[in-house]
C-alpha cells in the first residue's frame, strides 16, 4: 500500500461517497489513477466494501450482544454450516470462527432484552450447536466501525 492508497482510504473512511475527482485533486493525481488504485484495493481485499454507518439507537436497537458458540463436532456439527445459517439471520452483523474458549463468535444488534433472549434461542436451535454463552453490551457506542459495522 502506497501513499495514494492510504490517502484514498483515509478520505473514504469518513465519506465513502467522496468523488474520485475530489480525492484526485487533493492528491494532485489524475481521476483515473485514483479509480485504478481504489479498484485495486478492492480487488486485493484491503477494502471489503463500502457501507453506511447507522446510529443503531435511532433505528430501534438498545444494544449489542456477543454470542459464543460451541459446536458439537463429535456428533457431526459443522462450524461452516452453522456460520452460513448465522449470516442469514436478521440482526447478526459479524460471524467468525475462533480458536480458544469457543468455536464461533457472533455479534448481534438487539432491540431489547426479549429480543436478546429470542436471538439466543434461535442460535441454540441451529443444528450442530452444542451450547452457547452470551454477553450483553449497552447501546450508544461504536464497535470498530472501521473494520466491522456499527
Amino acid at each position: 500500500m502506497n501513499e495514494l492508497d492510504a490517502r484514498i482510504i483515509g478520505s473514504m473512511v469518513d465519506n465513502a461517497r467522496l468523488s474520485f475527482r475530489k480525492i484526485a485533486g487533493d492528491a494532485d493525481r489524475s481521476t483515473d489513477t485514483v479509480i485504478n488504485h481504489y479498484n485495486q484495493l478492492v480487488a486485493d481485499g484491503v477494502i471489503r466494501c463500502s457501507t453506511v454507518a447507522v446510529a443503531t439507537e435511532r433505528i430501534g436497537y438498545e444494544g449489542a450482544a456477543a454470542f459464543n458458540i460451541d459446536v458439537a463436532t463429535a456428533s457431526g456439527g459443522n462450524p461452516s454450516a452453522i456460520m452460513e445459517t448465522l449470516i442469514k439471520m436478521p440482526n447478526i452483523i459479524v460471524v467468525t470462527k475462533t480458536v480458544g474458549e469457543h468455536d464461533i463468535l457472533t455479534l448481534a444488534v438487539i432491540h431489547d432484552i426479549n429480543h436478546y433472549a429470542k436471538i439466543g434461542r434461535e442460535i441454540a436451535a441451529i443444528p450442530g450447536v452444542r451450547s452457547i454463552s452470551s454477553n450483553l453490551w449497552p447501546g450508544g457506542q461504536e464497535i470498530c466501525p472501521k473494520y466491522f459495522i456499527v
Partner: protein
Amino acid sequence: MTREAALDRVDEAILRALQLDARTKYSDIAQTQDVSVDTIIKRFRKLKRNGVIKRTTLLLDPRRLGLEIVATLAMTVEPNGIDEVVDYIQRRSGVLFATHSVGQYDVFAVAATRTMNEMNTLKEHIQGHGKVKDVKASIWVDQFLLCPQNFELEPLLEAQR
C-alpha cells in the same frame, strides 16, 4: 418520547442500498422507488441530519493492513474496577473496542495486532491490571463474515402504518 426515527419505504430503500454499497448512485435508488433524484438526495440529507446515518464509510480487512491477529478478549473483573479496566484497556495499543458487558464476562474487547507475540503481550498487560481477575482470549480464524444488510428496519416501517 421515542428516540427512534420515523422511516418510510423511500428511507428504507436508501438505507438498504447504501448498506450494501455506499457509492450506489442516487439515480439508481430513485429509479427503484419511482421518485426523483432530488427526492433521494433530500431524504439522504435528512437521514444524516436526523442522526440515522452517521456517515458513509469503508469496511477494511485488518489483516490486509498488516494486523494479522484479531482476537476477542473477555475478562472477569473485580466489581469495583469495571470502569477503570474498560478505560485502561481502551488506551492500550491494538485495542479496537472495549465495553462493559453483562453476562458471562464483565468486560469485552476486540483487539488486532501484527503478531501473536504482540497479542500475548497485550493480554499479559491486561492480565497484570490489579482489578482484572482473568482474561480469556479467542483468536479469530479465517475471514470473518460481515453482514451490514441484516439490520431490521421493518419494525420502524410498521410503526408508521
